[in-house]
Structures are given as structure tokens and as C-alpha cells.
């Protein structure tokens, strides 16, 4: 029977072969997307794992057991900047030959030596020395290997120092092992690099719900191509005496063969496109080719699972044929979806409403579990309720239909709302996730992220925060800016003025009004963009640093201080403000001078106000959400579009005879085209509306209960993304219309 089934599939004429090829091609695309998504998950983990060594010295990544028999080393991580790009700088000092070596290095750099990542090495070579290379003492003796680089584009430098010099720095820590704890497994305080546990959970949840699910729907739709015609054939076999088992075997062989070919081609397509995919910065950084890898479990699950699932689906679809040979040869009024389908959707939204009413769960884990459950339940609810909503909408359309196209389309939608909704379910999920993401991001940004970061003052004013931040207090360890540094800054083209903000009393333990800083009015006058003194004053009281809510505002009138200029100059420095013309040359040269002047004593490298805002945790989180939303939209919309196109072709194929005969009897092709357009556009637009509304409702409820904030209208980018998605989907619909012309030709009139 299997041999007969194979012969039927492979030598069953042009139509059978075409069906085989079309299903295999669709499965190929679906499997390639599925493998890309699975590979993407591995890539995020692989990238995150390579951040582990940069967590060295943090409490969250500390070893549970002390390491003995090694020479400890001094370690200091500092965040640096160059032209809007972040550079990780690790100052390292060995105390003996067995000091641990970070991954990617063959040995530790000695004093006056450093290793740079390949991307940074290239930058150092291409940028003027005074703007970048001068920050690193000595010479570059090599590049850091891939094992120590989260991404090929990572900018990181490992600088060798003497133990005596580095150990005198307050922030340096003594370590005896390099951390192997990635950011997502940190058990306590860690640096905000890579993805923490919550972010990884969020990424996996979103990717599973908004990308993997639509891909599986797409593959499922692809394997059902020509289902009606195939079932008619099987019904005919049953009529001539084939047993249910024989038909089931033939069906399973046919489906499995097409799917297996598609799966094999999908693996090939994935491997062919992988070199291109690694260059797409889905996480903000490129991947290494090996990152986008698949585990044995993934390979087996896809290679075996997809054909098996297709075979099972084929058998399930044959139930009607198997029960009765006439099962598919007759079109009867199908049973309608029932209103109970609304229950999961209402439960999901109800859960989110509950947190608004009774308050959010007390713990972070509890909040994540609660909101993810609510959002996932709402998402599942949309998919379950979709056919019922489609049926309600299409029944209303049937009553109002005046033209044949809208009548046929509405009848078909009302007849089989499951199939109609299945075609757009991928789009529904992506729009739901995108609406939540954009709703939260927009609101988040409007409440937290300052929009002043693009002002001229913000992009051209370099601020060096020289504060040393302790767990409970802070100090200003720099007594004075070296004269050589001041002179160098003064000679730097594009530098317009320098203000030293000195730490006053109360700096170590700031009161509610914030720590006081003092400036001399002579210096303040050289940088008018940060405010001015009262007339006649020698010095003024200002905020000590821009991390204390300070911003560049020329209108600010700082209160006069009773201290003389000399008294102010004698105080230690909390912050240095350098006004530049905004050119990269001026900013980077000034930054290099400041870094060399104060060394790595302080935690933060000098940054412009705009850079500081861009590096803030809120901005980084917002960017992360935005990237995730972009990835969801960019990947799920094409998948949804493909599902839609395959569904249309399948629907056309199954109705080629009645449509063909209608056309031959004079029905204009435009009428049939309108049928397809109606059949697709109505569920597409209704579902888009429902998904968007549900997404914003979920975002609103989350923001109210979790953050006590009100949902803000999304930005133009959201509308453009949604419009682009819908237009792209409609374009895919339009691209299938030529098929209609081909399959409704005169040959439809021939009696098979």
C-alpha cells in the first residue's frame, strides 16, 4: 500500500506533482523560519553566555566555593564611550604566574600592554590617536578571541596594569577566578550588561507566542493545501472500495513525503541563509556564525516532528472521508463556533483587570508570572475566539450583502470561519504583541526618557562625573584637575569652556535638596549653557553632578555662594563640565584628555548629556523592548503574510471548478477577484482591529496595575508599522490573484 501511495504521489500526473512541490515549498519556508527562530533563541543565549566574564568581581557572579592555588589578580571594569558607541574597559593586574586569564586571551597583558577586540582594534587604527588610542597606555599586543566577545561588533579592551597601581584604586576588586555566570544566572548584584533572567524569560515568551506559534500555523496551513481536492480523491477511492486504513495510509504517505521534502529543503535554506542572518543585529549586536546553531533536540524535533505532525494532521483531516465515503463530496451547512470561545479571552483580560483592582503581586517573580499568564491567556483567547468573531462579522455581512462578490465571500466566511480566521491568526498574534509592546514603550518613554537628549547643549556638553559612589556614601577623590589636563583641554580645537564643580559639605551624604556643588562665577561664565551667577557674585551653589537631576539650561540662575573663588578652588572636584562645539573631534579629544587625567578612579567615563541619557537603564530597557517589538513585527508579519497567501491559494484551488464555471458563464474576473479580496480583507481588518484593541487593553491594564501610569497614544512609528503590515498582507493577497486567472480558464468546463 505504501508503494502504491508513493506511486500515486510521485506519478499521479502534473496536478499531483504540482501539489507535492507547492506543499514542499511552503513547508520549506516554514521550516527555515522555524529553524531561524530556534537558532535565534540559541544565539541570544550564546551571546549572553559570553558576557559572563565581564561580570567578574560582582556579588551576583561570585563563586560559591573559594578558589585556591591560584595567584589572585586585580580587576576593574569601566564603561567608556567613543562616538556614541560603548566600550567595555577591563583594567587587570596579575599578582603571579597563575592569575586567571579571561576567555579569548592566551595570557594576561603586562603593564603598558593591552588587548582589544577586533572591532575596537579597527577603530583604534582608523581614529586619530588623540581621540582614542591615547586612552590606553602602552601598545596593543593582540586582539581578543571570539570566546571573550559577546558579538563580533563588541568594543572591549583589556588593559594591563601593575598590581600596585591598580590595587590603590578604590573600585578595583581582587579576584581569584573569572566569572562563568552569565547575566541571566546572576544571583545578586551584577552589571547591567547582556540579558538578565527576566529579559531572557520575556524574550523566550514573546518569541514562542508571537513568532513560533505563527510559524507552526503557517506550516499547518501549508500541509492543508488542496485539502478539499485531495479529500475528494480519497472519497472516490472509498466509493470504489478502499478501506479507511488504506486511505489513511495513502494520505499519510502523501503528506509525509511532501512535508519530509519540505523539511529537508527547509534545513538547506536555513543553512544557506544563516551567514546573512548573523549580520542582522536582532539584539542590537551581530552574532557569530556559530551562534545561530541548533541543538540535537531542535534538529530531531523539527526533522521528525514536523512530518509526523503532518501525517497526524492528514489523518485527522480524513476523519470525514473515513467515516463515510460521501463525507467530503457533499457540502453541508457546517456547525457554527459557539460563544464559549470568548471565555479564554475574557479570562485573560479579566486576570489583568484583577491586578488593577486588587493590586499587583508583591514579588517580581510573582508579577512576571501574573502578567505573562494574563497576556498569554489573552493571546490564546484571541486565537480561540477568532472564528466566533469572524462568524458574527460575516453573518452581519451576509445580511447586508448586495453584490454577488460580497455575498459569496460573506457566505464562505460564515460557512467556515475557522479556515478564514486561521489565515489571519498569525497576523492577529503579531499585531497583539506589537500593540502591547508599543503601548508600553510609548508610555514608558513619555514618563521616563527625557526628550532633551537631542538638544545642541545635550550633545555637545561633555560631563566628567568624578564621584566615587560607595554603597552608602559617596566621595570626590580628585582634589584638583591637573594643570596639564586643563592646558590640554584649552588647546583642543572645538573646546569652548571648562567648569569645575567642587564638592561642598554634605556631598558624602546628600540631604533631600541634593548634594551641593560650588562653582566659580569666572568659570561658569565660560560655559553659559549651564546657567549663570547672580551679578557681582564670586561663586555660586549648583547641583554637584548631572546625576542629581542637573541639566544644561542657560536660563538657570544659580544662587550666590558666600565662598570666595579661591575657597571654591580648594574644594575637591565632583564634576568637570566641558563645553564643545559638538564635533566628534572635540568631544573625543576632550574625553581622552579627561580620562587620562583622572584615570579609571571613577566608575563612569566622561559622557555628553545625550550619551548619558542613552546609556541610562530606562533608555536601555526601552530600546530593548523596542528592538523586541521590531523583531516581532519584522519576522511575524511576513510569516502571517505567507500564511494568508497560502490560505488563499488553497481556497482557490479547492473551488476551482465552481469558480471556473462561474467565469465561463460570464462572471467577470473582477467579481471573482472581489470575492477573494472580501474573503481576506474582512477577517484581516476585523481581526487587526480586535488584536490591536486587545493589545492596547492589555498594555493599559499592565501599566495601570504595575506602574500606576496611563497608556499614552502610540507614536507615528507604530501606525506606520501596522499600516505597513496590513498593506504588505493585502499586497500578498493581491499577488495571489493571478492564480485565479489561471485556474478559472476554459479547462474548468471539461468534465474530469
Amino acid at each position: 500500500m505504501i508503494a502504491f501511495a508513493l506511486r500515486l504521489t510521485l506519478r499521479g500526473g502534473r496536478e499531483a506533482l504540482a501539489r507535492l512541490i507547492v506543499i514542499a515549498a511552503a513547508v520549506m519556508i516554514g521550516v527555515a523560519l522555524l529553524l531561524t527562530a530556534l537558532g535565534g533563541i540559541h544565539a541570544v543565549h550564546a551571546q549572553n553566555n559570553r558576557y559572563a566574564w565581564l561580570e567578574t568581581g560582582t556579588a551576583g557572579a561570585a563563586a560559591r566555593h573559594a578558589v585556591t592555588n591560584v595567584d589572585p589578580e586585580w580587576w576593574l571594569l569601566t564603561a567608556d564611550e567613543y562616538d556614541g558607541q560603548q566600550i567595555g574597559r577591563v583594567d587587570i593586574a596579575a599578582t603571579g604566574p597563575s592569575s586567571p586569564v579571561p576567555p579569548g586571551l592566551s595570557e594576561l597583558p603586562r603593564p603598558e600592554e593591552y588587548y582589544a577586540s577586533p572591532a575596537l582594534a579597527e577603530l583604534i587604527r582608523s581614529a586619530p590617536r588623540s581621540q582614542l588610542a591615547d586612552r590606553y597606555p602602552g601598545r596593543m599586543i593582540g586582539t581578543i578571541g571570539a570566546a571573550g566577545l559577546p558579538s563580533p561588533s563588541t568594543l572591549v579592551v583589556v588593559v594591563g596594569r601593575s598590581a600596585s597601581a591598580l590595587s590603590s584604586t578604590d573600585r578595583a576588586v581582587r579576584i581569584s577566578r573569572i566569572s562563568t555566570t552569565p547575566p541571566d544566572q546572576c544571583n545578586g548584584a551584577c552589571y547591567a550588561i547582556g540579558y538578565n533572567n527576566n529579559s531572557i524569560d520575556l524574550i523566550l515568551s514573546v518569541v514562542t507566542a508571537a513568532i513560533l506559534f505563527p510559524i507552526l500555523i503557517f506550516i499547518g496551513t501549508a500541509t492543508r493545501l488542496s485539502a478539499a481536492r485531495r479529500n475528494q480523491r480519497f472519497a472516490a477511492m472509498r466509493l470504489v472500495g478502499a478501506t479507511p486504513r488504506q486511505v489513511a495510509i495513502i494520505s499519510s504517505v502523501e503528506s509525509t513525503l511532501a512535508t519530509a521534502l519540505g523539511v529537508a529543503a527547509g534545513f538547506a535554506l536555513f543553512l544557506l541563509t544563516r551567514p546573512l542572518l548573523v549580520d542582522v543585529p536582532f539584539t542590537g549586536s551581530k552574532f557569530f556564525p556559530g551562534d545561530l546553531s541548533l541543538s540535537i533536540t531542535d534538529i530531531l524535533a523539527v526533522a521528525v516532528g514536523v512530518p509526523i505532525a503532518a501525517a497526524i494532521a492528514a489523518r485527522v483531516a480524513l476523519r470525514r472521508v473515513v467515516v463515510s465515503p460521501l463525507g467530503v463530496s457533499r457540502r453541508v451547512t457546517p456547525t457554527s463556533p459557539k460563544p464559549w470561545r470568548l471565555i479564554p479571552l475574557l479570562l485573560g483580560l479579566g486576570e489583568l483587570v484583577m491586578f488593577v483592582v486588587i493590586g499587583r503581586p508583591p514579588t517580581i517573580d510573582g508579577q512576571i508570572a501574573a502578567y505573562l499568564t494574563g497576556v498569554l491567556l489573552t493571546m490564546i483567547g484571541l486565537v480561540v475566539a477568532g472564528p466566533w468573531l469572524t462568524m458574527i462579522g460575516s453573518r452581519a455581512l451576509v445580511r447586508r450583502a448586495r453584490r454577488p462578490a460580497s455575498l459569496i465571500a460573506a457566505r464562505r466566511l460564515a460557512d467556515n470561519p475557522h479556515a478564514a480566521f486561521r489565515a489571519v491568526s498569525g497576523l492577529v498574534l503579531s499585531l497583539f504583541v506589537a500593540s502591547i509592546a508599543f503601548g508600553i514603550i510609548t508610555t514608558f518613554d513619555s514618563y521616563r526618557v527625557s526628550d532633551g537628549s537631542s538638544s545642541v547643549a545635550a550633545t555637545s556638553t561633555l560631563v566628567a562625573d568624578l564621584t566615587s559612589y560607595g554603597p552608602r556614601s559617596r566621595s570626590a577623590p580628585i582634589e584638583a584637575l591637573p594643570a596639564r589636563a586643563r592646558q590640554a583641554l584649552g588647546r583642543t580645537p572645538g573646546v569652548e569652556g571648562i567648569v569645575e564643580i567642587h564638592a561642598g559639605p554634605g556631598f558624602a551624604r546628600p540631604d533631600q535638596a541634593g548634594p551641593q556643588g560650588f562653582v566659580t562665577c569666572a568659570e561658569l561664565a565660560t560655559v553659559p549653557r549651564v546657567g549663570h551667577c547672580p551679578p557681582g557674585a564670586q561663586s555660586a551653589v549648583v547641583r554637584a553632578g548631572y546625576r542629581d537631576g542637573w541639566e544644561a539650561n542657560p536660563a538657570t540662575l544659580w544662587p550666590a555662594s558666600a565662598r570666595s573663588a579661591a575657597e571654591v578652588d580648594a574644594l575637591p572636584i565632583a564634576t568637570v563640565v566641558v563645553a564643545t562645539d559638538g564635533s566628534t573631534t572635540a568631544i573625543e579629544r576632550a574625553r581622552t584628555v579627561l580620562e587620562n587625567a583622572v584615570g579609571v578612579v571613577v566608575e563612569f567615563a566622561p559622557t555628553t548629556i545625550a550619551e548619558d541619557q542613552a546609556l541610562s537603564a530606562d533608555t536601555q530597557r526601552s530600546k530593548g523592548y523596542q528592538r523586541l517589538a521590531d523583531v516581532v513585527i519584522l519576522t511575524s508579519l511576513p510569516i502571517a503574510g505567507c500564511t494568508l497567501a497560502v490560505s488563499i491559494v488553497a481556497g482557490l484551488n479547492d473551488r476551482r471548478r465552481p469558480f471556473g464555471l462561474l467565469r465561463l458563464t460570464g462572471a467577470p474576473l473582477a467579481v471573482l477577484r472581489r470575492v477573494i479580496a472580501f474573503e481576506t480583507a474582512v477577517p484581516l481588518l476585523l481581526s487587526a482591529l480586535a488584536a490591536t484593541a486587545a493589545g492596547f487593553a492589555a498594555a493599559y491594564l499592565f501599566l495601570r496595575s504595575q506602574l500606576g501610569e496611563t497608556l499614552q497614544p502610540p507614536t507615528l512609528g507604530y501606525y506606520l508599522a501596522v499600516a505597513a503590515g496590513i498593506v504588505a498582507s493585502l499586497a500578498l493577497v493581491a499577488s495571489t490573484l493571478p492564480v485565479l486567472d489561471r485556474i478559472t480558464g476554459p479547462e474548468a468546463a471539461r468534465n474530469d
Partner: protein
Amino acid sequence: MTALVEARGVYFSFGETPALRGASMTVSAGEILAVMGPSGSGKSTLLHCLAGILAPDRGEVHFAGARIDALPEAQRSALRRDRFGFVFQFGQLVPELSAEENIALPLLLSGTRRADALERARSWFPRLDLDGLEQRRSGELSGGQAQRVALARGLVAEPEVLFADEPTGALDSLAGEQVMNLLSSHAREQGTTVVLVTHEARVAAYADREVIVRDGAVTVLTPASA
């Protein structure tokens, strides 16, 4: 009698395979003509050429004195929609539509209001002994019932010519007889010319005249009663 439909030396091939080789024939207004012949003789292809579905490779097709084979497809479509009716062997009903909506479809396509089209469609149910089946789908009708619905659909717009391609081919003899009785009586009642392709002599017996197609050419023209 005046020829309403005429084929003059029509040739048509499917790729390398010739289907018609110089077929010529005429159909008079109000006449029921049976086109007979063995399977593969080209009789359906001849019907498709006469109805303007296929454009012949060579030769001419005339309707009401005007040549139609050279018309653009859009005009031939309009002709088929507005002046011709069709009944095929099976599968012409749109599966999603109810029986009355299927019958009303040609009227809707011609721009008739939905309510009027459905009212005219409903008037066919008692005439075709289909009372009570207005809301049924094609799958809920027997073969004979479905073919009667298709017949009503072919005649509802009162076409000048009804082209019927093996209209009883998928029916048993009793159902086939019922369909043919209704087809011939209503066509005569409306004055509709019928071109009926069949390979069954008892179906051809309903015609006024019959032609035989053999190897792509019309070889015999006889009165059906002869």
C-alpha cells in the same frame, strides 16, 4: 428558419491534439439541437466554441448575425453573461451559497437588486418541484435536485441560448428524464434556443434536431425524430 448560432469551418487544438477539424453547423432560433458523438469526438469543444468560451484557431462563429469568435474576451464574457445560459454536468453550484442564492447569481451579476433577484429565483422552486429547498446548500441536495437548481440558474435570466453540456451525465435515468422534461418545457415556454451536448440517445430525443460530431467534424445532420 434564421440561424441564431452558426459555426463555419471551426478548427481547434489542445496543444498538439486536434479537437475540431473544420466543424460547421447552424442552430435556429427557438430550436433545441442535440450535439451527439462518442467520447473525445469534440462535441464539448464545439459547444465551448459556439458559446464563446473558446476562441477557435481557425473558422468563424456567429451569433444573431454577428461574428463573436473575434471579439475580445471581455465582450464574449458579457455576451455569455447577458444572452446565454449554461448547464454543466456537475459542480457548477457555488458550494457556500444556498439554492436560491445560486439561482439568483446570474441576476446579481447583471446588476439586479438582491431582493428582486431572490424573488425571481424563488419563483423557480415550485416550477422545478424544489419547494422547501430554497435554503439548502449544494451538498444538501440530491444530484437531480442540484441539477434542477443549475437548470433554473441557466434559465433565470431568460437567455436567448441555453448551452447544456451533458446535463444528465451524472444522474440516473429517472432524475435525468425529470431534468430533460423541465429543460425542454421551460426552454420552449421561454422561446430559448438550446444547444445540448449528450452522448445518450434518450436525452437527444428531447431535441428537435441532432448533429453527430466525429473526429472533430460535424458529419451528420438529421431531424431528431428521423
